[in-house]
């Protein structure tokens, strides 16, 4: 019996030992909720995450959420405050919807503790991207290296074949589309060309079609003109823009399936030699070009400046902002986190904003994933560029967690390393020739304002969404545009605009 007791004691002691040791030097654990994409993994065990744990002496626990159902997951996460992890990475407006959930970071960002963050966020222009309606910093954003995200591109070889000159205005573009449709550039004897085709992207099916209206100086929804917030869908200029879109749609110049076209179907239209022009992320100039790699098609895809509208405006407005507030990268710290966790999280953010952290997250480990040539230029190694497992360069990088969801500071060298000269040329054209119009900021609302938006704007949004498509597709005549405007106003647009104007004024410090 005594023996048994002794053994039991020993077992107990042994089992308690790890606990005793643990308390002394245990690293702080911070958990991160973040989107996990097939081509952009964010999981425990990624090389970069392991390295960050070693470098910073913390433990990182990633709670991956599948990107397909992020909105659902986020809503469910926030329905249960007890389960919210230390850090949540998501879109700015979604984070700000629950602003009471996040730490105010104003005092944590200073010259001594977080010099790298301070360098960026001491700039009031940058700071307002990450602030709530009272002007407090609520999250850390991803700093982008480039501003030109999306652009227009078309098949130069078709223009050459039909001896057409490059269009520069919306009217010329319409003529060009017609010529393409009738000129049979793919030479199959059928008028099966689709001069303009876009893929459906995300929840806004028209995302890649509506930038045409930018040439009229407006946006589809909210935009600011001389510091007055306006709603594009009911603007008088929208009627003209819709008339143009409808004219093209009726003539078969715009893809009739723009509402539902998946990326694959869009790709197959290109490979079937049907598409002339499109609008998408800049890298798609290369992606589309690569589709023809193994064919003998004379395809030549070039980027083009936006077409000028009736008043000469040639801009796109949905470009990248200095902080990517619209993307899933913005990181907020939960108010329920312990002081140590907050400190560890700030340490992590500051490191990610440092030169060293930037290199690790954009390029990986020197000598292994990248190297520096004699001129000081960075280049990726063979392991990345010609991966032995046959992965594309990007996939090769991302399997290590390089360029992952944690990359808070992007580097222009990374952006340029992957894309062709044509993409770089077009990006420069947009950035340097003034083709990038003012983007409307992501505004922060008070609770009362949010109530008004929920009550009024949700239905307006649905109504506008479906009616715009009806106008474009000619299911409803543009004669009804004034009635449409009246209806939207009757649904409470003036109240919503007032809320937006107030939030905008706060944002701009007016």
């Amino acid at each position: 019996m005594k023996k048994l007791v002794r053994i039991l004691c020993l077992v107990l002691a042994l089992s308690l030992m790890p606990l005793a040791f643990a308390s002394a030097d245990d690293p702080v654990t911070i958990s991160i909720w973040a989107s996990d994409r097939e081509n952009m993994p964010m999981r425990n065990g990624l090389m970069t995450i392991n390295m960050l744990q070693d470098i910073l002496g913390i433990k990182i626990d990633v709670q991956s959420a599948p990107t397909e159902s992020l909105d659902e997951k986020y809503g469910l996460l926030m329905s249960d405050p007890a389960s919210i992890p230390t850090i949540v990475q998501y879109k700015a407006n979604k984070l700000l919807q629950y602003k009471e959930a996040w730490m105010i970071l104003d005092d944590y960002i200073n010259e001594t503790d977080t010099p790298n963050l301070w360098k960026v966020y001491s700039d009031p222009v940058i700071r307002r991207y990450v602030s709530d309606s009272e002007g407090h910093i609520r999250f850390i954003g991803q700093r982008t290296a480039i501003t030109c995200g999306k652009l227009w591109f078309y098949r130069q070889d078709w223009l050459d074949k039909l001896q057409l000159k490059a269009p520069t205005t919306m009217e010329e573009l319409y003529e060009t589309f017609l010529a393409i449709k009738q000129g049979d550039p793919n030479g199959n004897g059928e008028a099966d060309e689709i001069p303009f085709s876009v893929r459906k992207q995300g929840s806004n099916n028209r995302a890649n079609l509506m930038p045409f209206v930018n040439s009229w100086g407006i946006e589809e929804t909210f935009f600011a003109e001389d510091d007055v917030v306006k709603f594009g869908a009911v603007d008088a200029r929208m009627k003209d823009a819709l008339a143009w879109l409808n004219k093209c749609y009726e003539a078969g110049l715009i893809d009739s399936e723009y509402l539902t076209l998946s990326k694959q179907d869009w790709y197959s239209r290109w490979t079937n030699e049907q598409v002339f022009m499109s609008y998408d992320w800049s890298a798609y100039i290369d992606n589309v070009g690569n589709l023809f790699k193994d064919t003998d098609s004379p395809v030549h895809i070039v980027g083009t400046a936006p077409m000028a509208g009736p008043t000469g405006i040639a801009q796109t407005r949905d470009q990248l902002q200095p902080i990517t507030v619209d993307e899933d990268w913005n990181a907020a710290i939960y108010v329920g986190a312990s002081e140590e966790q907050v400190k560890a999280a700030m340490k992590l953010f500051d490191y990610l904003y440092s030169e060293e952290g930037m290199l690790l997250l954009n390029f990986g480990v020197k000598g292994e994933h990248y190297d520096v040539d004699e001129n000081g230029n960075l280049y990726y190694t063979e392991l990345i560029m010609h991966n032995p497992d046959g992965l594309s360069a990007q996939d090769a990088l991302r399997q290590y967690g390089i360029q992952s969801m944690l990359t808070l500071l992007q580097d222009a060298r990374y952006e340029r390393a992957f894309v062709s000269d044509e993409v770089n040329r077009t990006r420069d054209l947009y950035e340097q020739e003034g083709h990038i119009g003012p983007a409307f900021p992501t505004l922060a609302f008070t609770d009362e304002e949010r109530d008004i938006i929920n009550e009024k704007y949700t239905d307006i949004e649905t109504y506008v969404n479906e009616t715009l498509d009806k106008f474009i597709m000619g299911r409803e005549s543009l004669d009804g545009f004034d009635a449409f405007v009246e209806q939207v106003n009757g649904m409470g647009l003036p109240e919503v605009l007032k809320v937006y104007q107030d939030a905008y004024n706060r944002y701009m410090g007016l």
Partner: protein
Amino acid sequence: MRRTKVSALWRRIWAAKYLYLMFFPVLLYYIFMRYAPMAGLVIAFKNYNAFAGFAKSPWVGFKYFSQFFNSIYCWRLIRNTLLINLYDLVFNFPASIVLALLLNEVRQPRFKKVTQTITYMPYFISSVVLASMVVQFLSPTGGLVNNIIESMGGKRTYFMTQPESFRTIYTLMNLWKNIGWNSIIFLAAISGINGELYEACTVDGGGHLRRMWHITLPGILPTVIVLLIMRLGHMMDAGYETILLLQNNANLETSDVIGTYVYRRGILKNEYSYSTAVGIFQSVIGFVLVIASNWLSRRFSETSLW
């Protein structure tokens, strides 16, 4: 006298102790997974905020209900939901009865078995796959349906963006998926009909159709009625997962149903209180329908669900 009654009840309860024991896990399930969430419906009357919690969220009474009834979409949602279900009820429900009747008349057992196997098959395909197949087949460029239309001299049509086509598409899709599977229960009911009745009918010189009309159909009527009552209880729900996958702005006019609306406002926009209020409205209508139809059925046909 009274005491003996009470003790008699206790004796009966004691006698059924093993049955209670058997039912206990099921009871726990219903209490925890079905009834406990119903307490959560209270958030429809509050401005629910997860950070304040159930108790501290302020009461707002019927604010969200009146918001829904005042929305320009209220009537459209109710109409769409009812119509989609009505289509299903009018076409798909009888279709599986007809299939069961046809199968019942087949005399070659092997053919019958193979036909059954084939018609059950679509049921095993998940809605994710089904929806993408529908979009693919209906595509105006290269879609199977449009290829056929064109080869017959018709004009390619973009069905998925036509509000007037949506209900037809959805109903046909469900017909394809469920007709075989739903016929099982009717086949079962048919096989339960007393064979002597058929013989009697044949002896009376009854033809095939007569037999079907006078014996088979009345024989399965109780099953049909019970299923119909259950179906009516779900007139306000519609498979919103599948509808969501088929929905786009252009067909919203007919494809937006209460389920997708609740999903959009509740899960995507996180307006829990509002969407719960709409959900309650949906449940109440369904509940009223099931009670009414059960009452009607009991009154006129002596068959009822309870």
